């Protein structure tokens, strides 16, 4: 089988959400010496992008997106040992650190945003839910992300978003990272009030906002 056919098969298996087949095909590709970067770009990412398109067309639904993203993530993990960090870095549109703020146990919306960002070629570091301010600060220092995404579902916890932005200012990190906020009670006005750089209503919007923010950065 030529490499191209094999890579197309991987992409198709991702679109079909056939995790078993993706896994087998990726293993086969590695075995015959296909460049892991190519497996990601021409196989997994291509498939994931197609899933995103199908979603936008209304043919796929959120569960399809989530399952495809999971297949994608799993296989990337498997390929990571074969990649040099330099290679991965140049291939992403940017790095996004994301998490649900302290006191908030909801992470559905945040997960969707993370998935849409990965589908669109960003490297996403997800800190999960109930994330204390100190951990956000620590991880920003460690990963040096381009964008920080803060999610809050409850009107009580959205206050935390403000605290985190303040903590960024206090630790001199504010100018190094763009901050986007989201969650059910969060509004454009709130984002402005607390000095965030962007706000998105939903996961698709979030991708546009992040792309825009990084354009301005250049």
């Amino acid at each position, binding site marked *: 089988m030529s490499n191209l056919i094999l890579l197309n098969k991987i992409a198709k298996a991702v679109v079909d959400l056939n995790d078993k087949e993706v896994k087998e095909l990726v293993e086969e590709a590695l075995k015959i010496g296909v460049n892991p970067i190519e497996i990601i770009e021409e196989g997994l990412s291509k498939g994931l992008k197609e899933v995103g398109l199908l979603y936008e067309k209304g043919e796929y639904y959120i569960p399809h997106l989530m399952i495809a993203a999971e297949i994608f993530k799993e296989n990337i993990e498997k390929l990571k040992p074969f990649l040099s960090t330099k290679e991965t870095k140049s291939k992403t549109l940017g790095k996004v650190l994301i998490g649900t703020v302290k006191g908030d146990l909801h992470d559905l919306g945040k997960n969707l945003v993370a998935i849409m960002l990965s589908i669109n070629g960003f490297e996403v570091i997800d800190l999960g839910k109930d994330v204390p301010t100190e951990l956000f600060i620590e991880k920003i220092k460690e990963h040096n992300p381009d964008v920080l995404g803060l999610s809050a579902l409850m009107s*009580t916890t959205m*206050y935390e978003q403000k605290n985190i932005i303040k903590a960024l200012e206090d630790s001199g990190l504010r100018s190094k990272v763009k901050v986007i906020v989201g969650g059910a009670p969060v509004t454009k*006005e709130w984002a402005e009030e607390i000095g965030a750089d962007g706000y998105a209503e939903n996961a698709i919007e979030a991708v546009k906002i992040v792309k825009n923010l990084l354009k301005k950065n250049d």
Partner: protein
Amino acid sequence: MNKFDFSNIKSKLQLLTKEDIEKIHSSAIKILEKTGIMFDNKEALKIFNENGFEVNFEKKIVKINEEAIKEAIIKAPSKIIIYDRNGKEALFLEENNVYYNPGSAAINILDIETNNIRKPTSKDLEKFSILVDSLSYIHAQSTALIVSDVPKIISDRYRLYIILKNAIKPIITGAFTIDGLHDMIRMLNVVTDGKVHEKPIAIFDVCPSPPLMWSEITSQNLIDCARYMVPAEIVPMPLSGATSPVTLAGTIVQHTAEALSGVVLSQIVNPKAPIIYGGSPAIFDMRYGTTPMGAIETIMIDCSYSLIGKYYGLPTHAYLGLSDSKIVDIQAGFESTIGIILGALTGINVISGPGMIDFESCQSMEKLVIDNEVCGMALRLIKGMNVTEDTLAIELIEKIGPGGQFLTSKHTLEWFKKELFIPSGIIDRLERKAWIEKNQKDCIQRAKEIVRKILEENKPKRLEPEKEEELNRIIKNSIKRYEDK
């Protein structure tokens, strides 16, 4: 009401059979026994531990056995009376009594003049509470708007403050913070002369976080409500397919487990603490990732878990009468109507939701006035058919005989107000010519006019000055507390 008794269920609409209820009940127990539920709150874990429950402090998981659940349900009161601000009995939460109140905690209001949404202010909530007080079929207030002109951190108590100052009807509310609840109880004690535990005038919503979790704040709110003997409404909000199984039955099982865990905690903190079996579940829209409150399946889940609450002999609550439409239009009308009617047929005691559009995020005064009318119709519907000798009216029919008329008979005069729901100006029943002469207004235009008229004619029902002074002091103190921090 008896506990664990199918004869409690006299609902006209029964989406679950006796066997379904048994299966759901035993499945929920299995989950609480085997998997347990997480309480992200040290005090809750301590309370469970001290009362002999299996607690994993590291994972914050409590396992609750069947016996404890049974005991809690038996202890919890079957009937809760909620009073109004004047100390008069207002809501009798038991059996199939149905009471409506507006949807709560909207972050937006649909501006009646501009038709745009905007952030609500304290003034909006004041107007809203005056409107609610004057609507016949909206039986309770709710802290319906999150006001934007006070610091967010005190907005939970500030909402209650505004309503207590201006309106009489009982209140459905909730705290956003741990100490917010204590301040709110202080305020309620001012208004009830220190009798909030005997004559409650407010119900507090406490919401678990699906799946199978309680946050630090809501666990504490639940514990504190039980200590104060203030009615708490447990509001689990599983989302089918997202934070609960996509199947309706699976979602109801999870809802049951989450609600029962709350009942157990409240009853071990304080036996007989008033607890309402509520919820705000929804399905999850697989296309947009939204949580439609007007979806028929959302309404089906509500009408089903309420039957489980009835089986347990507990007062029930649900979020119905909301719409996902962004404006007040036909969608807003039909989605809300389906919920209002089916909720009434199920006999849910507290139905929260009228006025709300845009899922659970925007209140509309004109929609509230329209929904009020639907609530009136629903209440007429559940009053049912009255078939007696007098209403059958055989003698009358024979007396009037062929070709006669009934308009001038005493029987008509005596019965028409009892039998017929008399609509307000919301509903148009004019003949076309008269309607054309009357400016050809549609329902929404009529609703706006009614809102304006009610707000013009009704003044706030102010609290006694000394009590108001005391409320001011509590609010000022809580602002000061945060400033000092």
